[in-house]
């Protein structure tokens, strides 16, 4: 280091100090980001677990002033709405993804659809809520489980389309060509070869879309509306877990706050478990399929 002048050495020291300073800032930022996550999870488990009991899963909400009660009808209601949403959203989303990946490669129309799907993904969920309200609820003249399902289905479509397309894009062309070379028609190739090879990824994509809409509250406010009692009628208002959490969280009663925490814990656990299970399942499928 003899050939370095004094100013060069000082310059190097400041540059090196800057390097360590910025690295430190990045580490600090990461810690600051993980901190609220840990705080949220800690509070959920701490507050939620202490208020969970069997009644929570078996009872409908108690009237104001009475202790006890649960969210059984909300859990079932959420299940019904999500089932409806998946029934409509998943086939359309996957089909659109198949079009983009298998039939539309390089076409202007496909690029436009891809772009629209990405943009639709960013449309606020409350806007979906009021559109479906204006379309279905105003026509039917009352809130309904079906309207909630349609609102969530619309939110699932763009996510599923894009993940399906990305997953299909990872399927090697040689596999498709092999099928086509055997004389398999193109539609059969798309279903039995491309979709099947990419199925673990597509299932994961559907599950992520499902998890995303499972916690949505805003689109259900004016469609499913919520219900204090059991309801299995698709054309009637129905309870949903996120809606019930919202109502309880902004209420002034301690008992209801307690139930809101318990509900949030159940919601998060349901979302996390479904995502994790499907990931494990999907990974195993990928290994067995040996694509």
């Amino acid at each position: 280091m003899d050939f370095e002048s004094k100013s060069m050495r000082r310059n190097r020291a400041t540059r090196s100090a800057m390097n360590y300073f910025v690295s430190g800032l990045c580490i600090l930022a990461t810690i600051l980001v993980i901190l609220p996550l840990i705080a949220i999870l800690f509070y959920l488990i701490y507050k939620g677990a202490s208020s969970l009991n069997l009644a929570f899963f078996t009872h409908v909400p108690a009237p104001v002033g009475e202790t006890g009660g649960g969210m059984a009808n909300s859990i079932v209601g959420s299940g019904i709405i999500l089932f409806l949403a998946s029934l409509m959203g998943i086939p359309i989303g996957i089909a659109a993804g198949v079009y983009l990946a298998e039939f539309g490669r390089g076409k202007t129309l496909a690029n436009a659809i891809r772009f629209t799907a990405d943009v639709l993904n960013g449309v606020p969920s409350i806007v979906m809520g009021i559109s479906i309200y204006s379309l279905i609820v105003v026509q039917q003249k009352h809130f309904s489980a079906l309207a909630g399902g349609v609102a969530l289905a619309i939110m699932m479509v763009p996510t599923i389309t894009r993940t399906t397309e990305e997953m299909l894009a990872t399927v090697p062309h040689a596999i498709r060509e092999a099928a086509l070379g055997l004389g398999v028609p193109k539609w059969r190739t798309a279903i039995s070869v491309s979709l099947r090879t990419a199925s673990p990824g597509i299932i994961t994509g559907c599950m992520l879309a499902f998890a995303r809409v499972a916690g949505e509250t805003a689109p259900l406010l004016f469609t499913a509306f919520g219900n204090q009692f059991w309801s299995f009628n698709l054309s009637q208002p129905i309870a949903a877990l996120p809606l019930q959490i919202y109502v309880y969280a902004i209420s002034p009663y301690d008992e209801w706050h307690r139930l809101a925490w318990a509900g949030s814990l159940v919601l998060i656990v349901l979302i996390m478990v479904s995502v994790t299970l499907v990931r494990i399942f999907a990974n195993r499928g990928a290994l067995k399929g040996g694509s």
Partner: protein
Amino acid sequence: MSPPAASADVAPAVAGTTLSPIRDYLSKRGSGRLADNSFAAVMLICACSIFAIVLFIFGILVMHSRLSLAQFGWKFFTTQGWDPVSGDFGALPFIYGTLATSLLALCMAVPLALGVAIFLTELCPRPLRAPISFLTELLAAIPSVVYGLWAVFVLVPLMRDVIGPFLSKTLGWTGFFEGPNFGVGLLTASMILAIMILPIISSLTRDIMIAVPNSQREAALALGATRWEMIRIGVLRNSRIGIVGAIMLGLGRALGETMAVTMVIGNHPDISKSLFAPGYTLASVIANEFSEATGDLYLSALIEIGLALFLVTIVVNAIARLMVWAVTRNAPARVI
């Protein structure tokens, strides 16, 4: 529609032998052209339904807000009154609340998100990389209403008793931290928004940084750059358009975020300089007042707010997507 599938019509008819199910199938079927074309058509219809959804949302919002569109015109977005009783509606306080909370949230989230992305792509030891990115993406999986619940019972008291008094003592002279501090208000809403948009910005930024070719990094290092200089010259400069796009996607999300904000912003249509003051956003006024809106004009004014929100988020998202695509288009497909 399907030139490569033409071979399907000249399938080898090796009948009788059951060598494989697929060959068995082929020997039994006829021409596949009709099936092929109708399959492609069905897929196309499903794909076009995405256009239909966007057009339908736009159409229905315009149709149901025509009363308010006709009555107020552009004045709707520049006046302050919000009085359902006398039928006087102006969306300015909500626009102010939305812009103030979103921009403030970006100011808090962007430096942190960039820090996380740089840490994850350039500095993080390999074994830590997957768990940390999993943890930050876990933040994105938490529903909005749960963030709201947490904010109401943890962030609001913290704001009221610790952060608020500290800010008014040290920065009170700026005028941004004046007035009574109830814990709910613009600042609390911005903080919860910042936490919510962080994972989006950081994971997109990380994807964009990964798309920068390693030769750029190596060139900078070979010229004697320190690690930070390499990141600044080699990585950040090359990915800046994509990073701006990622930030705009975060902005789009912040503009439309409803539940968590509604729960902590205070819901009061006022324009005030102090960040402690309660406010109102476009999304939260819809969430709060839509189901109790009496009168057609009231409802139509709320739907017009929804229309404005829809158009603004479409524009912001479109610009953002184009910017992100400009950078990552040639990168390998992202596996979630």
